[in-house]
């Protein structure tokens, strides 16, 4: 985010850090002009430029940041976007299980996720990728097809494996981030501070699941499509040049709701809950079904599991 663009002069908005900005009121006016002109063209306000890593902010600073973001979103989308900052619930470690014997590959989850999480629509960024595989081969990435598009699913002899962020207990993406812009929260959700991300994409290279996605261009999110119920670490609108990924719908799940993909799945293949609660659905799956972790040999230790419900 902190690219040279921040100091590129544009009409009526001279660079706030320029040599010639001696006088106070001029600087003030310049900053204000930059602030109003900012979001759409990939430029930063002074406040945004000076903002620290989310984890280092005091409570008051967080509130100021949120206030600023909400104002920016209002200007950009003409809508009241609420940016929450709900912390992890105590005693909760989120887990997910996906039933490979039921998923039919209809991609309802993929598109519900895009809607819920304010992804760019064109080109569309999708956090869930559904792989079509052959029953004869089993889970084998060599024969996986992600662009399948028959008239109807499931296709004879095939099964479907949706892949999204596995919320690893030992996330390589976090380990490689040179600036600490991504980390694991107490409830197990791996999040990104989009304002701190420098867009180096190391995490994308490190993630063995292809779960991270990059905003190569200015995200194209029409105002009418904006989901206004957002979280700072989750689905708030992003800018060009930052990485994003599935957050288990942090804006929903920290309020006790199921994720958007669980809600929409017509086959009920998606199970979600608290791994620390013995009575939860997710624990029932782990204790009673045949479960596996994807690419277990890499020791990423996902909190996302695949199982066979039959």
């Amino acid at each position, binding site marked *: 985010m902190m690219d040279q663009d921040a100091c590129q002069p544009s009409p009526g908005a001279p660079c706030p850090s320029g040599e010639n900005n001696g006088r106070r009121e001029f600087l003030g006016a310049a900053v204000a002009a930059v602030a109003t002109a900012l979001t759409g063209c990939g430029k930063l306000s002074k406040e945004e430029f000076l903002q620290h890593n989310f984890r280092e902010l005091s409570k008051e600073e967080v509130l100021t940041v949120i206030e600023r973001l909400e104002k920016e979103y209002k200007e950009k989308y003409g809508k009241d976007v609420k940016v929450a900052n709900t912390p992890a619930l105590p005693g909760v470690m989120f887990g997910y299980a996906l039933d490979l014997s039921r998923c039919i590959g209809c991609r*309802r989850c993929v598109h519900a996720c895009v809607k819920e999480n304010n992804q760019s629509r064109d080109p569309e960024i999708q956090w869930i990728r559904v792989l079509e595989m052959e029953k004869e081969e089993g889970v084998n990435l060599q024969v996986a097809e992600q662009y399948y598009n028959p008239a*109807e699913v499931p296709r004879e002899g095939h099964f479907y494996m949706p892949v999204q962020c596995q919320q690893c207990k030992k996330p390589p993406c976090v380990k490689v981030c040179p600036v600490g812009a991504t980390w694991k929260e107490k409830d197990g959700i791996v999040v990104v501070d989009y304002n701190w991300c420098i867009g180096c994409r190391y995490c994308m290279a490190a993630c063995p699941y292809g779960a991270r996605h990059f905003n190569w261009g200015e995200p194209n999110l029409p105002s009418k499509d904006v989901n206004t119920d957002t979280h700072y670490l989750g689905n708030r609108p992003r800018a060009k040049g930052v990485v994003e990924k599935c957050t288990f719908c942090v804006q929903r799940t920290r309020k006790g709701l199921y994720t958007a993909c669980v809600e929409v799945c017509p086959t009920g293949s998606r199970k*979600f809950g608290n791994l620390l609660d013995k009575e939860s659905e997710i624990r029932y799956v782990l204790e009673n079904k045949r479960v596996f972790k994807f690419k277990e040999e890499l020791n990423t230790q996902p909190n996302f599991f695949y199982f066979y419900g039959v």
Partner: protein
Amino acid sequence: MTRLLRLCILPWMAACLLAFAATAVTAEEHKKHAAAAVEAPKDLVQVPKPPFSEGIFPCSQCHDPKSMAPNTTRRVLKDMHTDISLHHGPDTRWCLDCHDAYNRDNLHLANGKLVSFNTSYQLCGQCHGDKLRDWRVGIHGKRTGSWNGAKQYLLCVHCHNPHSPHFKSLKPMPPPARPEAIQLKNGGAK
């Protein structure tokens, strides 16, 4: 005085509790019920009404025992309900194995016990016991709502047409764009 007070309060409390139980389930209750789930999924969850074809229920509108004596001979229906083709063990099963000939607005179990259409999962569970067990704990089928609170279930028949239960194929939603289809334009992807 205390007695009077108690008399006043008790029904009020009971009403409150009932209203509460009927609308939502707290996490505590959920846990309690989940343990005892094999008996009673009923108040743990909200289940929507069965998906009847329009205007068909109550069945007794037409199947009035006074005007229409039930014909219990096993046969292929020719006059009515011809839209139904049974793909659910047709060799061993026909209408009155599940629908009750004498209580038309109900179903019945193999032992003759009547079951309402709202709890038809009991009927399905006679054969599909493993599915019923998983459904009660929220593993088979779809649950929506709150992972730590009130949830909505669906009946078996919301996803599986009881006369032809195989889950219907769907048209998949669009696949992701191939990288080569994404063009650079004005310094941004397009």
